[in-house]
């Protein structure tokens, strides 16, 4: 039995943040119905990355929306709204990520939905919160990275370097899923419904809780990245990734004189004071970077690993997927859409009772489940969909 079996989630959200939360709930066993705008659907369907189109839709849509159903409706049409309200009466969870004010206008705000279904868990995801200064600003990943200081942590000293995927969307989705799950637990024990709210900006600050706390208690000193081989603005040498004779090597913690001895790097030997690993990290990293280019990655790993120095090869996806360490995880699954189109994607990263949470159900075509959903949940039928 899956943890969320028999739970019904009605998801109005689009793009990545909200839908990544409902994907997690789906993989845990919930039935997730996407409410999609008639004719268009989730805008993510046409949000292509590097122009990759799979079965007529974007690769990211397929990644985010597998294991879900699609209910195509026009929320400006009263007949359709009636059907959605019928569905919400049976739902355990409802999710949306519209800008503040939109759900009020459509008549699906928390107060209204609660009147339909008193113990529903109503989950709302916004960019900057629903009240106050940022209300209504676009909740877009790169912009949230930019305003919360995140771009000064990666890359070498110099200009801002963004994290190269939509990390804030995923964090917010992850936090929303936590809030929903916690309230489903409360509901399971007390029957109470709930109102869960997450914003991308709060999630972005939470992601940086260690470094912002450091900043706030350190007299306001800004993070300083190293001139080269930076991997963490707050850590000393050797922490970083270095070029070798034939590739790259990642080095985490390790005493500088010990490393100097193991690697045969004389120039590094005299940094014997542990404080120098931080205070003189630019100097040390420059020496280390030069030295590591004199040998292959394999050579250095063969010296460092047996000495319990934390180090690693640096792989791309092709190398990763060929590695036995990756294969042992069974991380890839194949899913199939209702029209027979099959594609590969990753699975849920959580194991429950030793089982992988996989599902062969691919992403839905727009409106593919209307008939079934209407016949199952709707007593007042719309003329449009009969």
């Amino acid at each position: 039995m899956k943890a969320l079996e028999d739970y019904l989630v009605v998801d109005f959200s689009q793009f990545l943040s909200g839908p990544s939360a409902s994907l997690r709930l789906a993989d845990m066993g919930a039935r997730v119905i996407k409410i999609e705008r008639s004719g268009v659907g989730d805008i993510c369907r046409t949000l292509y990355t590097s122009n990759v189109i799979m079965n007529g839709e974007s690769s990211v849509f397929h990644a985010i929306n597998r294991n879900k159903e699609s209910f195509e409706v026009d929320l400006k049409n009263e007949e359709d709204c009636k059907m959605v309200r019928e569905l919400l009466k049976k739902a355990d969870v409802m999710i949306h990520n519209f800008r503040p004010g939109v759900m009020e206008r459509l008549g699906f705000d928390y107060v209204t939905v609660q009147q339909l279904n008193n113990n529903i868990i109503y989950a709302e995801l916004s960019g900057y919160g629903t009240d106050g200064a940022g209300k209504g600003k676009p909740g877009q990943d790169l912009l949230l990275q930019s305003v919360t200081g995140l771009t000064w942590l990666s890359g070498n000293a110099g200009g801002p370097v963004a994290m190269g995927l939509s990390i804030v969307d995923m964090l917010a989705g992850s936090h929303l899923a936590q809030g929903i799950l916690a309230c489903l637990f409360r509901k399971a024990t007390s029957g109470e419904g709930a109102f869960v709210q997450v914003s991308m900006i709060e999630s972005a600050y939470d992601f940086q809780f260690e470094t912002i706390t450091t900043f706030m208690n350190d007299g306001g000193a800004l993070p300083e990245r190293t001139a080269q081989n930076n991997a963490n603005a707050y850590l000393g040498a050797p922490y970083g990734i270095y070029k070798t004779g034939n590739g790259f090597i990642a080095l985490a913690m390790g005493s500088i004189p010990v490393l100097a001895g193991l690697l045969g790097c004389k120039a590094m030997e005299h940094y014997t004071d542990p404080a120098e690993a931080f205070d003189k990290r630019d100097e040390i990293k420059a020496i280390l970077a030069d030295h590591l280019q004199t040998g292959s990655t394999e050579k250095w790993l063969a010296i460092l690993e047996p000495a319990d120095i934390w180090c690693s090869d640096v792989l791309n996806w092709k190398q990763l997927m060929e590695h036995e360490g990756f294969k042992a995880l069974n991380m890839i699954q194949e899913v199939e859409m209702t029209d027979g189109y099959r594609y590969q994607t990753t699975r849920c990263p959580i194991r429950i009772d030793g089982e992988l949470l996989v599902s062969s159900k691919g992403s839905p075509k727009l409106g593919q489940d209307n008939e079934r959903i209407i016949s199952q949940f709707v007593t007042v039928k719309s003329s449009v969909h009969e």
Partner: protein
Amino acid sequence: MRKPLEGVLVLEFCQFLAGPSAGLKLADLGARVIKIERPVKGDACRQLAIKNLFVDEDSLLFHTINRNKESYAADLKNPEDLEMLRKLIAKADVMTHNFRPGVMEKIGLDYRSVESINPKIIYATVTGYGKEGPWAAKPGQDLLVQSVSGLTHLSGSSEDGPVPFGLSVTDIMCGNHLTQGIIAALIKRAKTNKSVLIEVSLLESALDIQFEVLTTYLNDGGQLPQRSKVAGSAHPYLSAPYGTYQTKDGYLALAMGNLIKISKLIGCDISDFYTNADSSFENRDELLLLLGETFKTNTNVHWLSVLEPADIWCAAVLNYKEAVELEVFKNQQIKQQLDLGNGRTIDTTRSPIRIDGNKLYAAKAAPKIGADNKKINNEFDLK
């Protein structure tokens, strides 16, 4: 409001960041979290300082991750301590650990043994790379996991070589996944009344955050991500103008947007490189450079006043000084103060989740090692 996890008792055998960050999330949602720590030394994170910042004898880092928890000191190699722990485990709802595979088996607190003490326990483990395969014994350290996961080929420019994310992203995401798994297990247990085993690993979490781009890779004939050569480009799979740009007095971020509209607004002629919609990806490098030349000629305030009214998705790139001065940081009350006693406090951030309209605050500072032994011994009748 009744916090959703009120009444849930969590025993945290985890150290460092991944596991304890999950403990913190559970605590903020209402659970009671007791850290089980070895006497004298405790969680190794107590000594792991960044910028050498300590609060009394413990690092500020430890305080950040372990606020709102209790501490119970016990020596897992001492039979008497172990006996008391078994009694405590019998009363717990959840236990978490991140020992390397095999350690808990030796101590006798592996899942099978614990299940026999408490048949309704949620037993949750964090590993670096899972329990099987050649990497199972490798150290589960954030930078190393980033390095094998392919994540370092997504940020920065193609000139940079691998660029890791500049904070412990795999630990933090793994902590988030652990939190989700644990709460899902509590829901499952509410129905079955039986113990549940939850397993997460840093590597699986590192792969999960790449699920969109990995799915693209798996279905586009295996083309590796190609970052732009241009500094400031922000996503290997997204076209111009996506990125950050230097201006006369700072940096500006531009998300996805209509290039023709944007170039007109800022007065930049892109006609040489933009001939149709595909150009924005195909000529990404040239377009990023061209826009960059124009942005350099004026200030952030100027460009924002041109772009924002036209609904172009843009923002100034801020540092921490500016980020904590933001109106939204203040009016959403993202900061909270921890009470160290004697009038001393630590400023930190609060939980990012709101329940029933309430922000979740907790002023309780991180515990000293064994701070709660006496209370817990009495309360659970352990001695």
